[in-house]
């Protein structure tokens, strides 16, 4: 059986726990000589930790990318919203009878510019995970997103979406309320927009649940995020009836940011700090903010009609096939 993201990071976390404990001890130590020895040891451990991180992240395979993208210490959508934007006011409700907490959104300021931010939200505590349905958005999440997209269009606010979901909710209730229709209608609405839209895949870009709010003029991916038509576990279990071959499926699916850029399905890779976005949140926020500001600046040069046409042109060219007559 393959490693989970928790197992994969365990050696690192153990090292870090050790360092933290040593620091506690050193703090209390009164003998200067002993203290110096302890400090040296800490330095050694930290070097080892840094080296470990460097090696571990220097050449991540597809499956390791999956593990990193799912890491629970990575910043989530609301963390980005707090850091990259200000004056965010979360708006809620699908106006149809339901609420969803796996997609959050509302107006916010990007520097002095009002924007509409929408994103998938995972939870960290057990309670929050349940509230957020582990990031699996329900139909009402997409219908709320549609409402916010409409508001953005009405008030000429650029749309920023942050993508981080294992996929949409596939349960009986979600089906009964039309999860498919909700995703489709959200994509449809995004293509209607004449205000610029930018999507950033910050963690997991999980199939229909991800594209449901990622049909933007520009789609950017964090260096270690993933974007996939199907979860590798699901792919492996359908193709080979062996969910444990997920790492093979991850490789075959070419779900990394690097592959997505190669196939020209995304516009830019946003670099992560050494060891991933979870190792240095502020640096990550800085990179993400710069990328968003840059692309909004570029899209600002377009007329509303050009924004609309640009988005279609972007997706229209996606797909690889042969034309026997014209190739």
């Amino acid at each position, binding site marked *: 059986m393959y490693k989970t993201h928790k197992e994969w990071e365990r050696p690192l976390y153990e090292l870090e726990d050790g360092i933290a404990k040593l620091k506690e001890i050193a703090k209390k130590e009164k003998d200067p000589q002993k203290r110096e020895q302890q400090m040296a040891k800490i330095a050694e451990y930290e070097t080892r930790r840094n080296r470990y991180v460097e090696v571990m992240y220097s050449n991540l395979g597809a499956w390791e990318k999956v593990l990193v993208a799912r890491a629970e210490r990575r910043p989530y959508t609301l963390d980005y919203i707090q850091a990259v934007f200000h004056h965010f006011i979360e708006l809620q409700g699908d106006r149809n009878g339901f609420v969803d907490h796996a997609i959050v959104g509302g107006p916010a300021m990007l520097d002095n510019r009002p924007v509409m931010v929408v994103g998938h939200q995972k939870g960290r505590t057990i309670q929050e995970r349940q509230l957020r349905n582990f990031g*699996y958005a329900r139909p009402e999440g997409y219908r709320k997103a549609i409402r916010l997209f409409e508001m953005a269009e009405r008030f000429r606010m650029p749309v920023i979406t942050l993508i981080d979901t294992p996929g*949409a*909710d*596939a*349960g*009986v*209730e*979600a*089906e*009964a*309320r*039309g*999860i*498919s*229709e909700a*995703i*489709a*209608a959200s*994509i*449809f609405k995004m*293509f*209607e927009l004449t205000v610029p839209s930018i999507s950033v895949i910050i963690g997991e870009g999980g*199939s*229909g649940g*991800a*594209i*449901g709010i*990622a*049909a933007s003029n520009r789609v950017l991916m964090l260096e270690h995020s993933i*974007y*996939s*038509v*199907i979860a590798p576990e*699901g*792919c492996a279990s*359908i*193709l080979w009836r062996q969910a444990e071959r997920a790492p093979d499926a991850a490789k*075959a*699916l*070419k*779900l990394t940011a690097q*592959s*997505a850029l190669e*196939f020209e*399905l995304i516009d830019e890779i946003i670099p992560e700090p050494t060891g991933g976005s979870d190792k240095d949140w502020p640096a990550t926020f800085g990179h993400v903010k710069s990328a968003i500001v840059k692309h909004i600046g570029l899209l600002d040069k377009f007329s509303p009609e050009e924004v609309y046409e640009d*988005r*279609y042109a972007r*997706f*229209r060219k*996606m*797909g*690889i*096939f*042969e*034309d*026997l*007559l*014209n190739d």
Partner: protein
Amino acid sequence: MSNKAETKSEGFLQCANCKKILFSVDFEQNLRVCPNCGHHHRLSATQRIDITFDPGSFVELDRDLRSVNPLEFPEYADKLAAAMERQEANDSMTSGTATLGGIAVTTAVADFHFMGGSMGSLNGEKITRTLERARESNCPAIVFCASGGARMQEGLLSLMQMAKTTAAAQRCSKAGVPFLAVFTDPTMAGVLASYASIADVILSEPRALVGFAGLRVSKQAGVGKVPDDFQTAEFAFNHGMIDRIVPRKEMRTTLITLIKSLGGGKPSGA
């Protein structure tokens, strides 16, 4: 359960649903709907075209396009070659133009027998072209769906077809060109969650499988109990997702009536 009506011997076959042995001639004359239980057996794209459009009016387009294996996905090239040979088609989707009750339409017709009707680059391209042709010629677009979902062997390229096809449908909508979708067994996942669900009018054959995820996945994900008719066209209808469930023999006339009224209010185009 196999959905196929299996040939038992010369001139006879067995309905996979009610197990009754049927005369092949009766079965075919009844448009492959079981005369005993009413089960709508799957049709090939050719059969669908024959029973739907004005005789001889269908013109196939996009025939010179071929799927490739952009991800070099294991076994994909072989599966594709086998499907193309067996089905004598370049994809699960057959696209073109036709007339229906004398009205020019653009159309794409899915065939589940070709790799489960899955939507890869070529499939998405054909739907997109069908919708673009509709918009350009101001003719209604009629798409018959039959798909297990996205074609995972083309990875993210397949996922992007959801956006591409939906975008093409949005442009039809904006231009006031009708887009009608017909769900047939099965209409699932990436196809259901994109262009299929945002058609102006959605019709479905009775008892077609219609859903987002495989039943197993839905059961795992949900805590509620699974209704008997879960992920059928009837379930989708009773949850507001489908306009009408139309028996196969009434589909042609229903489509004709719809395109007349929905296309007739605006200045005539092509």
